[in-house]
């Protein structure tokens, strides 16, 4: 009954052991267009060119100051563009014996210096604006910055474990990004010791109890600093803050990521240290169980609710979920009358209002009218009901709960893009 009520499959697979191990060194990493909705790149490198870690490989055509850098030293393997001159993937083959770039002494004591450094060093895309969930403009000033130090699901890495041994770097990172705003920096964390203690007046710890969706930055922002089209805040993940801190302290670019390996097909669910954009096939080669009934493997970058089936680790993802893929169905498996009963539909099923829907959204928003507005793409009503406070991950649970089977995340992105163009 509980399962029916929540509408979400309860994951009975083992929770990842919160212990960090080195992941297999991957030879390929990629910068993925799926992480950068609506971005058109201007390439700064060519296929076959040698790049060093931290070297800019492309920048945003609309904002040339926002550069994207290579997380490893190596050779540009391939560049694929998607529709409308968007980036599909830029793959870099790493060459481990290449000399490491020298640490550069970086002064980050004023807002201007921090801004210029983060832009030039490729850390700017770590920030996402709310509303719209996009990379902020180089000259934008947020009203507040939200540091997300909460796991968004039980299978995600525990931030307190990940930050162990990096607390000084994390504090240095917090102080650096605090210069970017005149407002507060909310460090949103699970109950426990304040990991932002003693960093200054404007850097505040905020505590969110363990509940579904309390790990999402959308929930934090909704509670502490609701946004609309005239009020904008930024959010950033804790691993990026620690990386910025390391840059401040040592001048070294650190693009390593600690991710949780989870799901029914993982041999040993635990935390792995790898690199942003890592090739998932390489990373999990030794980590997968054979499927029951020989079903193929489905690799998900991110969580089950909001991740995507992918071959590369997403820029903002901290989890890899290994699932059974559906067994391929023969065309003859359904015949006659059964094909009529189970016709594959490309349209969402009807929305039947159930009590579970009300619990799947953590916002003070009338759920059913909101979902109806999204389903018909009515940006005006969706805006009135508060869609500007949300991004895709906030409505992921709704998509899994609703009878319609519609992807409300994609519908929301469509509406947000429309509103962003008008703004």
């Amino acid at each position: 009954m509980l399962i029916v009520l929540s509408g979400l499959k309860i994951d009975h697979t083992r929770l990842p052991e919160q212990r960090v191990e080195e992941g297999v060194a991957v030879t390929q990493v990629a910068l993925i267009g799926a992480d950068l909705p609506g971005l058109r790149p201007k390439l700064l490198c060519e296929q076959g060119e040698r790049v060093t870690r931290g070297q800019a490989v492309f920048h945003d055509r609309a904002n040339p100051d926002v550069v994207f850098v290579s997380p490893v030293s190596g050779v540009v393997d391939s560049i694929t563009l998607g529709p409308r001159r968007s980036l599909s993937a830029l793959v870099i083959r790493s060459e481990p014996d290449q000399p490491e770039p020298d640490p550069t002494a970086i002064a980050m004591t004023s807002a201007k210096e921090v801004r210029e450094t983060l832009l030039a060093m490729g850390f700017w895309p770590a920030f996402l604006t709310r509303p719209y969930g996009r990379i902020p403009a180089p000259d934008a000033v947020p009203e507040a910055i939200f540091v997300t130090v909460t796991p968004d699901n039980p299978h995600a890495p525990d931030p307190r474990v990940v930050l162990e041994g990096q607390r000084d770097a994390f504090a240095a990172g917090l102080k650096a990004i605090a210069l970017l705003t005149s407002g507060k920096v909310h460090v949103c964390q699970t109950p426990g010791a304040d990991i932002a203690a003693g960093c200054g007046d404007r850097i505040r710890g905020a505590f969110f109890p363990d509940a579904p969706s309390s790990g999402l930055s959308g929930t934090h922002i909704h509670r502490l600093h609701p946004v609309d089209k005239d009020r904008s805040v930024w959010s950033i993940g804790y691993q990026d803050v620690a990386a910025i801190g390391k840059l401040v302290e040592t001048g070294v670019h650190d693009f390593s990521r600690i991710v949780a390996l989870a799901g029914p097909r993982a041999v040993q669910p635990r935390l792995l240290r790898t690199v942003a954009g890592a090739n998932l096939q390489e990373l999990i080669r030794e980590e997968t169980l054979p499927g029951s009934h020989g079903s193929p493997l489905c690799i998900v970058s991110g969580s089950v609710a909001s991740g995507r089936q992918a071959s590369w680790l997403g820029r903002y993802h901290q989890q890899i979920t290994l699932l059974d893929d559906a067994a391929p169905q023969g065309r003859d498996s359904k015949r006659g009358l059964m094909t009529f009963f189970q016709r594959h539909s490309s349209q969402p099923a009807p929305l039947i209002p159930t009590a579970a829907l009300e619990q799947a959204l953590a916002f003070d928003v009338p759920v059913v009218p909101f979902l109806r507005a999204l389903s018909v793409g009515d940006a005006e009503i969706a805006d009135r009901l508060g869609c500007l406070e949300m991004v895709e991950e906030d409505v992921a649970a709704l998509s899994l709960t609703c009878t319609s089977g519609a992807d409300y995340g994609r519908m929301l992105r469509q509406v947000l893009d429309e509103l962003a163009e008008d703004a």
Partner: protein
Amino acid sequence: MTGWILDPFRMRQRTGWTPARVTIAQLIALAAPVAVSLAERGAAQIAVLLTAALTCLIWELAFDLIRGRSLSLHTATVALIFAILVPAAVPAWQIVVAVSLGVVFGELVFGGRGYGIVSGAAAAVGFLVFSFTGTELAASSEIMALATLPGLVLLLGGGLVSWRNLVSVTVVLLIAGLVQNGSSGLLSVAVTAVFGVVFMIGDPVAGASTNPGRWVFGALAGVLIVLFDTAAGPAVAPAAVVFASLLASLFAPLVDHMAVALIVRRRRARHG
């Protein structure tokens, strides 16, 4: 809108309600009342049930073929609710006409289950009572009321009826019963109204869809039941529940509109 459904892998992670599962849950909830009606009314009731079910199935098949969709069995619930509410003495052709009008104009022309604005069963029974004057609906017995309760628990547990809706309609009915007939008539009110309240006024699609709206919708339905009630004594006439459900459903979008305006105003105040 096409191509907006979830990725295959996330589709497989859903274990909650799908339209087919909702239909099955409603059919299970209706099983006990149907059994009671069969026991009470005998063989004639089987004819009513079959006529209504067959009519529904034919229309559903026709619409699903035209629209190129897979077959949904939701109209079977319409047939069951209809069969429980109408007496066994109604001629078969009247049942065919009423059920056809009810499912087609109550549900199928809007796109089927989940898209309509009134409860299909209420529409069918309403058509029957309006078109063939003199038709008296079957009054609910104590056993029928008892048989409704397991279904009520199932639907409430699964979140398929809104408790806000049910609480507010019950409160209005009890207060009205208390004022009119004193506390002795309350049981009679509950027995005669419970089936219609659960399966027609509780319909999640036809009712209001915002939480403040559900309170208002339930209260409105309760008041309408009291207004339409023509039965002497404390008992509630079944037709009163049917017409209250139909009229309240027509007001549900207005109620929701006002509730949304209220919520939006509250948001604005909070944002400052």
